[in-house]
């Protein structure tokens, strides 16, 4: 099995490696700030779901390093394409956190969506692996235009099974475009372990099938994620084509707030992976380096809490969009007559109340879907 690229040791037997070139002290702090902001968002979102203030939510607790590390290696002009698992990545690129929360709250239009062009962040992608060809196409377009713009997409171990993964990888390799396929191998696709997903021991060994570079990193190590991405982007910009990065980690939490992992895995196994989670580990690393101390750590934590608390206030201040939102934005040039008729029909009936999130439900369940209670009004 391929070696894992790793920088952060465990402060005991496993030694730290020297911080790679390109990450100055201020970068390390900024990267840490990103990690904390992502973590804070995620924990707050889970709490909001528990309180019935947003709907089913796909948490990423423990995967912050794969997100912040990779993004930090990108230039502002580079595009990134998240899946539902990287739903909050946009907040590191200027998307209002309240917009992401509103998306999970079930709001559309200007409330829950952002303009990808403003942030070079693709929309949150729900259908598995379907955003990979977009990342390929985008960097291909940049190449056609002679622009030094790269792209990156995140996806899971399960996503590698879809045809779209294969086609996007192959196109990227054939047209030698500057795109990074960042696979977050958390070893689970809902209830399906990677051993049932593929017959290979690693994801990274699939790179060779496309004539593509591949590298496997410790997905709980944000520095390793940064370094692998940075090198991949450099190669891409140099005309050496795409790279597949496998960030090997473990899904430390349920698939989503509606999922109960006890149905399908041994959570004592999960507990063994817990010490590897990136925030504590990065904090300890930075403290060993003397870059971070307790005060600074607390300040960063407070700042993040403040930001997300503010976002919750903003999200909750949003009124349910009007009925016209059903039709807005679908077509560029106004509304076809079918929409006008639809609006007219709607005006003839009393408006139903806003659909509120379902909130937590009792009983075992799985996947994206909370089990409504019997007799639930829906």
């Amino acid at each position, binding site marked *: 099995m391929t070696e894992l690229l790793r920088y952060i040791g465990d402060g005991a037997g496993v030694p730290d490696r020297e911080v790679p070139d390109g990450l100055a002290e201020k970068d390390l702090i900024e990267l840490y700030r990103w990690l904390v902001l992502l973590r804070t968002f995620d924990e707050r979102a889970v709490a909001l779901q528990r309180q019935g203030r947003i709907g089913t939510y796909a948490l990423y607790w423990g995967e912050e390093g794969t997100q912040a590390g990779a993004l930090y290696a990108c230039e502002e002009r580079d595009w990134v394409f998240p899946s539902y698992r990287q739903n909050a990545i946009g907040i590191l690129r200027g998307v209002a956190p309240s917009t992401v929360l509103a998306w999970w709250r079930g709001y559309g239009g200007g409330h829950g969506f952002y303009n990808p062009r403003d942030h070079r962040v693709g929309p949150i992608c*729900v*259908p598995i692996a379907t955003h990979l060809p977009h990342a390929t196409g985008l960097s291909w377009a940049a190449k056609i235009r002679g622009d030094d713009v790269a792209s990156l997409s995140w996806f899971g171990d399960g996503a590698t099974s879809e045809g779209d993964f294969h086609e996007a990888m192959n196109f990227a390799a054939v047209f030698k475009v500057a795109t990074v396929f960042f696979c977050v191998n958390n070893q689970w696709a809902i209830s399906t372990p990677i051993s049932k997903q593929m017959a290979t021991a690693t994801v990274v060994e699939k790179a060779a099938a496309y004539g593509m570079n591949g590298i496997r990193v410790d997905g709980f190590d944000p520095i390793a994620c940064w370094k692998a991405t940075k090198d991949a982007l450099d190669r891409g910009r140099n005309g050496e084509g795409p790279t597949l990065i496998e960030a090997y980690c473990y899904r430390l939490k349920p698939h989503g707030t509606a999922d109960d992992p006890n149905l399908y895995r041994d959570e004592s196994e999960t507990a063994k992976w817990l010490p590897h989670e990136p925030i504590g580990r990065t904090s300890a690393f930075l403290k060993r380096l003397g870059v971070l101390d307790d005060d600074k750590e607390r300040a960063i934590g407070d700042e993040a809490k403040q930001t997300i608390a503010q976002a919750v206030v903003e999200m909750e201040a949003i009124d*349910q969009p009007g*009925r016209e939102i059903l039709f807005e934005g679908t077509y560029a040039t106004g509304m076809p007559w079918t929409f006008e008729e639809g609006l007219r029909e709607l005006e003839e009936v009393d408006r139903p109340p806003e659909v*509120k999130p379902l909130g937590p439900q009792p009983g075992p*369940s799985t996947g994206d879907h909370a089990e409504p209670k019997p007799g639930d009004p829906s």
Partner: protein
Amino acid sequence: MVEALNKALHQAMEADDRVVLLGQDIAQTGGVFRVTAGLLDSFGETRVVDTPLAEAGIVGCAIGMAVYGLLPVVEIQFDVFVYPGFEQIVVHAARYAWRTKGELPASIVIRIPFGGGVRAPELHSDSPEALFCHVPGLRVVCPTTPQDARDMMLAAIEHPDPVVFMEPKRIYRAGRKEVTDDPPFPLGQANGAPEKILSTARIARDGNDLAIVTYGPTVPLSIQAADRLAHERGIEARVVDLRSLYPIDVGAVTKAASECGRALVVHEAPRTAGLGAEVSSLIHERVMLDLEAPVGRVTGYDAPFPQFANEDDYLPSVDRITAGANKVLDF
């Protein structure tokens, strides 16, 4: 309905060891909606299979299994996720029988939980059934009651044609009525019963003033609207639950429309080229002279299914169905 489907799968697998289940997260956990709960324990992991995450692979392998002689039942996790398997369904499942002189149908059942009303994130609430109805060679069915769910699932598995089995997820938990234990026909020696079960409509409410033709999640809503019409203006609406979306039970539909003189079609899917258009055309073509008013349509809009806070704006509601009915009545 979930329990009824589960019961049907248990019975079918018990009766015929050629029945196998394929899908994402269906074995170990019993599926996102728990339709396949307990089946792994009863029938083991060779017959109840958690597959890799690839719908074309799932449907395509199921076709290959059917060619060998198995009877695969495939679960698509949510409506929209059927699209990666769409090519396999259209170019193979639908045409295998035809392409083999009728001798080797791709006898598979594709279960698709569909529709909105469950407060799900983007792309978990669509209603793609009309697409399958437009593809020759498929049967498309949709149960509304738990009893129908059980009976139609048994029929779909036993029937040689490929069946797209639309499961209205919004009413998965509704109607906890008891389902009979006895199968609707002797399993394994069906004798035409599945064909009948899969192709006839059901009168879900009787009446002679207005025919409301619908299926799946909008059946209970249409019944409520009918009750309201009875209460508010003494109009008795007959609610026709299509059950079979392809082929449509044209006799039941036109009989209802012509006896009532007025008709309304209701579904959740977008309007244009939806099943409502087909039902409306069939009625007008056949019994226009019996009609006092054009057939009305109450449907989803020609717009993407909204984020869930607004889904009740999008979905046909009792109010909208009643308003649509009143328009037909007051024409």
